[in-house]
């Protein structure tokens, strides 16, 4: 099982993202986008494509937009091809913003985005831990998970969805003590519509999520972990294990 983790132009979570995949049993490589553009055929060697978090192009012209435009003219068809096979793709935070801007999520039919990620209601960057529940239980990334405790860290994480969206596309939603956060800060850290924290595509093999599972891999990542020192992993681990199980 092999994962390709994208890097370059301000992406910055590639190391910890690759590590999370490695911990559950993947082998993988971090590949600079310019190297992938030069040799897109190497995608055949991988089963999982991960676009990690970061600040590609400094969020200028909207987070994820500039990188999406770069992918659009250089790698779009190869990405569609990758998705159409029995493979997995994940975009985390900035990776999520890139996938949304590419229009790959939720519907993959056109090159136009159907959904936008806009600035948090607070008008500020929010780095904090949230609780989310799994809505699309059929996505391989999310199977057998009910809720997750994960950190978010973004300035533009508010999902804006002009046309109502089928529940099957909703990956994760922010909750407040087991119930939907109903837009209430800080449970919903950005004011996201329907408390949405992640979307999937129709088949569930592509997941675009704002929270960072790779930053909640180990139990020591979790706030106040010292209250229970016998656990080994944090909730983020479950997402990566799911990827492994899918190919088992």
């Amino acid at each position, binding site marked *: 099982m092999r994962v390709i983790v994208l*890097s*370059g*132009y*301000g992406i*910055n*979570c590639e190391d*910890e993202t690759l*590590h*999370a995949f490695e911990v559950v049993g993947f082998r993988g490589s*971090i590949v*600079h986008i*310019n*190297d992938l553009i030069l040799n897109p055929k190497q995608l055949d060697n991988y089963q999982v494509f991960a676009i990690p*978090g*970061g*600040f590609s*192009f*400094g*969020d*200028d*012209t*909207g987070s994820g*937009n*500039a990188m999406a*435009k*770069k992918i659009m*003219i250089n790698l779009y068809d190869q990405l569609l091809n990758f998705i159409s096979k029995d493979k997995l793709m994940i975009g985390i935070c900035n990776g999520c913003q890139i996938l949304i*801007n590419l229009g790959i999520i939720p519907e993959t039919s056109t090159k136009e*985005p*159907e*959904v*936008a990620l*806009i*600035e*948090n*209601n*607070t*008008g*500020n*960057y*929010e*780095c*904090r831990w949230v609780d989310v529940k799994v809505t699309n239980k059929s996505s391989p990334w999310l199977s057998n998970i009910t809720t997750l405790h994960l950190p978010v*860290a973004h*300035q533009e994480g*508010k999902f*804006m969805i*002009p046309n109502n969206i089928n529940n099957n596309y909703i990956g994760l939603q922010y909750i407040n003590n087991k119930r939907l956060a109903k837009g209430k800060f800080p449970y919903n850290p950005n*004011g996201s519509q329907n408390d949405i924290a992640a979307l999937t595509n129709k088949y569930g093999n592509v997941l675009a999520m704002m929270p*960072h599972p*790779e*930053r909640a*891999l180990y139990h*020591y*990542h979790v*706030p*106040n972990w*010292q*209250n229970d*020192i016998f656990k080994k992993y944090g909730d983020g681990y479950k997402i990566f294990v799911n990827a492994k199980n899918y190919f088992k």
Partner: protein
Amino acid sequence: MTNTIQIVSLEKTGKESSLQKEYNNNSIKILDGYFFSKKLDDKKFKKISKLISNQVSQKILTKKNVNNILSKYSKFNWVIEIKFLPGVTDNIATTVKEIITDNLKNSFKNFQLGSTKIILVKGSKKDITKISNNEANPLIQTIKIYPYKKYLDNFKKNTFTLEKVKLPKKKYIKKEIDLSISDYNLNLIGKLGIKENDKSRRGTLGLDLESLKTIRNYFYSVKRKPTDVEIETLAQTWSEHCKHKIFSAKIDNIKEGIFKKYIKGATEKIIQLRKDNFCVSLFTDNAGGIEFNKNWIVCHKVETHNTPSALDPFGGAITGIVGVNRDCLGFGKGAKPIANTYAYYLAHPSKKYQLYRQKNNKDPMLPADFIAKGIISGVRVGGNCSGIPTPQGNIYFDDRFAGKPLVFCGTVGLIPRKIKGKLAHKKKANPGDIIVMVGGRVGKDGIHGATFSSEELDPNSPVSAVQIGDPITQKKMSDVIIRELRDENLYSSITDNGAGGLSSSIGEMAKESGGFIVDLEKVPLKYDGLYPWEIWVSESQERMTLAIPPANVKKVIKRFNSRGVEATIIGKFIRKEKAIVKYNKTEILNLDMEFLHEGYPKLNLKTSFPKKKKKIKKIIKNISLIEKLHKLLSSPNIVSKEFVATQYDHEVQATSIIKPLQGEGRVFGNATAIKPLFNDEKSIALSQAAYPQYAETNPYQMAASSIDTAFKNLIVSGANLKKIAILDNFCWCSSDDPERLYQLKEAAKACYDYSVAYKTPFISGKDSMFNDFKGFNRSGKSIKISIPPTLLISSIGIVDKISHLTKITPEKGDILIVLGNTYNELEDSVYKKIIGSEKTKSPNVDAKLALKTYKNFAKANKLQLINSAIGIDIGGLGIAISKMAIASKQGLFIDLKSQKKISINEFLFSETQSRILVSIKKNNVSKFKKIFNNSNYTFIGKCTGSNTIEFKNEKKIMIGKISDFEKSYKQRIKGL
């Protein structure tokens, strides 16, 4: 045809909400605008608009739809148009240009563009002025205010304009300067700069008369006149910023100067005492390095960026943080930045100081809240965009920072011990190595930064000294260095371009080889028209200088280019000890290296004991203990800084293990920790401390307290007592005043005494000696505001095991103990400032006793006896108790009879140093007593698990609800 693209967000954006709230006006809308130097036809307009906007959340304004769309939001009547001044770094424009060039290729080229913020408002002219004053900085931006009608007109008639950098044609390559002139005229050169042909002056060189005479004598001896480039270079190299003349000067009877005697001297002594390998690289490199484990070295550096942050808070702070990141990249062969730290010393943001750099209310200082907000967001953007976690920091407020804020930015880095068998922290530019500049291009930004930071802020302070960092350009460059080139060992040496630009970086590296020859015309420029001297000293950001063996040059440049980073050959290092710069083959600089680096006249300083200043006494009476706690908890220097912690990404790199917000109640901690390697359980604990409030009373104890607190916080967090290092950042004022120098000497002496006592070495440091403001107040009276002498001690320590890391949250049933004695030391305390107190003393650090406490604590912690712990610092024990309760949401019972020698106020609010509040499980009491052997601790109560804190004395019980204390502690700071 049009030359503008303007974009409106359909939904109210977060920024719009916060502006609307701030100005209590629902009719504010912000547009993203782009102005082009070339007209776009309809097809290109459509294509480019689509590329740079989001069709779901935004709409593009056109001549036809503009009024229709905008009138839906409100009946706007004013427009504020904010653009960067030509030549100021415009990061968004750079990205847009890249997107356009990528997509349109050759069909649209040779154009310039600028990004614009357009704010639409419905309100009075007064409202508009207020908004524009708060949202823009005239030093770096142009602000146009005009009626909405004119805005529509501009659309109709296509009259939006982009200002371009227009530099007059270069009139000369070099200029010979005649120094055989009167002292008066020499002084003018030093203070106002070299005279141009049109009689204008270039801006301060910061050179005093003696330095200029030394330069004159040197050129007499080589029998020619100096060039302007030579004088500019000497000014940079000899600046206080680069040479630290005050720290190296003879002072009273200390011949070697206070740096050599007290700072470096302390570390040399400690190395001698320790006999281990903890210290790896000290004082010689861009940062200081210590051992992390067998295979890795960790380095740390803290810089200040005070003057630039006073002029352009956002730009100053972002440049500060990305600048110190480069110090890490330039440590040894290049360390990966793994954590940022910050500390801001600011004026109260809710107050209006109304200061002016010139008479008649001209040239106003920025308002205190604008400065505070700008600094906070500058570090946010710099740190977050670079993917470096920023866990550790603090903010302190005092009126005396109204003339100059202090902005400390630090970075921790990680580097392997060896690369291909060679020690990674060693580097040496060899004769024959090629000089390659990588990263950003050179512009007029940041010219004279080094020379002017050596001076007070006054009417002559140059405005082009301001730079704005571009974290993405730097991130791209940093990725190539750290992720690819470093481990292939392709370059011999590397250093960053900070203060003094190329003149400083190449000058420093050339010490390793002998000398250098640079062909300055090869340096890539942001725009034409720069004079050679400007290219040579410009502090344009995001650049590193590499020394590369000729055989590797091609490979290195190719690698940078393939990652979208520019890399250019600009010269070579030579064996001969000469500094030579040419421009199109004309020699414009030729100096002996020895003179360049060591030729400056050494100062000879005298100190004198300061006169006592009267202190104002006020005491608030008839106030209960609980009310006092509320007052203190909500005071600006104690209140939670959570709002900063949550906007600084401290989770990136997945290393955060002790977070800035601690416990369920999210208390802003005074130490944090990261675990930098997935395969090693060792962590790095970070803290910092400064006590400017103690400085005027006792500068020696001020420094002692800073060292003790920074050291103690790491012990409390679980660090190994023998693996702690510290950094010194002296920010002083009026350092030509013997009384200030006396305080400096005292503080430095304490640095020696206490670091040696704790055997904790100084590994790096920096000083900034003139943090004074000279100007005028609102009524035109000339005033000087000096910061209180501030010594920031940053501490970095290794925590050997995860299980050694402590928490600040006690559990029900825990016994509470104060480690260390408490004395009547309320002088300069927060309590005295807010509530007031009679006769009292200032804290006095007893290093011997402190060390005993720390050793016992560490021992108990290793045995897992400590269930929770918090260092007691400003505000005293009462605040530490409250923080524990707020963090854990567990009630505490405090027996005020537990000690009898001092009053309740002294017990709870004295700022006696070296104390720790701990909680232990009841069944561990006897083990605890055995370790502490009946000395220096007091059992003060227990954790009840209720929802209150109870204080009991002989007569009564005073009770406060935790949720109320939490409310006070989490009050928003006014003005932020």
